[in-house]
């Protein structure tokens, strides 16, 4: 964006930078001035070392939930997206209703509903973990199917027409003609969605599923020191979100290289 950068420089980029720096220094000064130094100097991050096993277990649970949401979500989402293309109208309406239902209500409400109402409806009691997984997978399938649908729509109609004209069977048409190029365009949104399910997994803390946030709340309740553990946990979440987005940069570059060959 050379032209835009030039425009920004012409319309006072330097002044903006100076003003922003001054504002930053002001905010920092005000923050430092109003800090409660007594609390700050009494922070002991080293004390958290004895909770390392619990935190690692929580992290493992968080990553399990995230990968379950991403894997099942992509799989079920692809199926839903394919059903959306079907010529049978009631089937399409059903899928659209399902997707809209799960996209337009908060996951917290779905979670509580699934945990408390589903056992009453079905008569099968579920543990907190099972309810959590059901909720996160249902929501993931709805969100991922939207991405897959957009990906399928980005495939030029000529592909489908050509495969129809060649008499390629439906199964082969999806697996070898339409889905591969669709998935390549979908990598960035899929990764963003995976990061957003890393965030969603923290919401399962309301059922005490045992993921990272549950562990953090327990530790902070046991030690009466919320600052240390919550800060560390926030940093851990940030690190993993950053890691996932970094990995995709690589995947994208690799697929781009394969394309050009």
């Amino acid at each position, binding site marked *: 964006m050379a032209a835009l950068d030039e425009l920004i420089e*012409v*319309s006072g980029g330097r002044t903006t*930078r100076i003003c922003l720096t001054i504002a930053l220094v002001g905010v920092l000064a005000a923050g430092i001035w*109003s800090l409660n130094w007594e609390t700050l100097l009494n922070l002991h991050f080293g004390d958290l070392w004895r909770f390392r096993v619990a935190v690692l277990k929580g992290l493992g649970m968080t990553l399990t939930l995230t990968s379950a949401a991403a894997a099942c979500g992509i799989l079920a989402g692809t199926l839903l997206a394919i059903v959306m293309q079907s010529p049978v109208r009631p089937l399409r309406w059903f899928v659209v209703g399902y997707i809209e239902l799960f996209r337009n209500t908060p996951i917290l*409400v779905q979670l509580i509903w699934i945990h408390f*109402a589903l056992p009453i409806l079905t008569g099968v009691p579920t543990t907190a973990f099972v309810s959590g997984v059901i909720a996160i997978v249902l929501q993931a399938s709805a969100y991922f199917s939207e991405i897959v649908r957009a990906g399928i729509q980005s495939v030029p109609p000529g592909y489908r027409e050509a495969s129809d004209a060649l008499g390629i069977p439906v199964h082969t048409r999806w697996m070898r003609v339409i889905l591969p190029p669709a998935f390549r365009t979908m990598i960035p949104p899929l990764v963003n969605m995976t990061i957003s399910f890393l965030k969603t997994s*923290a919401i399962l803390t309301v059922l005490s599923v045992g993921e990272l946030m549950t562990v953090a709340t327990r530790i902070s309740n046991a030690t009466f020191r919320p600052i240390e553990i919550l800060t560390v946990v*926030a940093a851990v979440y940030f690190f993993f979100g950053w890691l996932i987005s970094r990995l995709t940069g690589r995947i994208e570059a690799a697929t781009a290289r394969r394309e050009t060959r």
Partner: protein
Amino acid sequence: MTFDVNVLPTHFPELIDGLLLTLRICLLSMAFGAFGALFLCLGKLSGRGSGYHVSVFVIDFFRTIPEVVLIFWIYSCLPLLFGARLSAEVCGIMALSLLVAANVAEIMRAGVQSTDQGQLEAAMSLGVPAHTIWLRIVIPPALQRMAPAFVNFMTELIKATSLLSTIGVAEMVYQANVLGNRTFAYVEFLTLVATIFFAIIFPLSLFVRHAEARLAHQKSR
């Protein structure tokens, strides 16, 4: 199981209170957040210097950490760190404002940076004054492109307010829990709350769909 709808009408006032609180929190955090977003967006667009690096980090950080962690952090750490008393509602509004600031800043930046390169170059080479370029060439189409992303984020924000029930802000989900505890009609109240959320968010996501389709149509022409 029994699904007794008759318990609902007697408790409408509490639910309406919850709904109003949800909407108020949304509006306030949107207003504060938009203000912060403006600074973050300026910082990110300025391209280099300390403002740029701090903006990039702040945007990435608050977009990556889970909302729940942010809410709990602010609720349990800020009062200790600053030695101030903050109500749960204020903490919630702060957390959501940060969320709005980071996300809206990114939406605004994307909108500005997707300006048509050719139009920009043409205007610059014709010697159009900088403020006219901003007002006539950069901002109007940027706003149009931002609209779907912005409304989409709004739906996320409305859904995120439900998380404030975990720190005891008396919004809709919290009220549903309280009323459920009182009347044992958990499923009824939860279903009603889910329906209310759906009724608010569904029109917004329909708008997003239409706006996106319109933009795609424009682009293909």
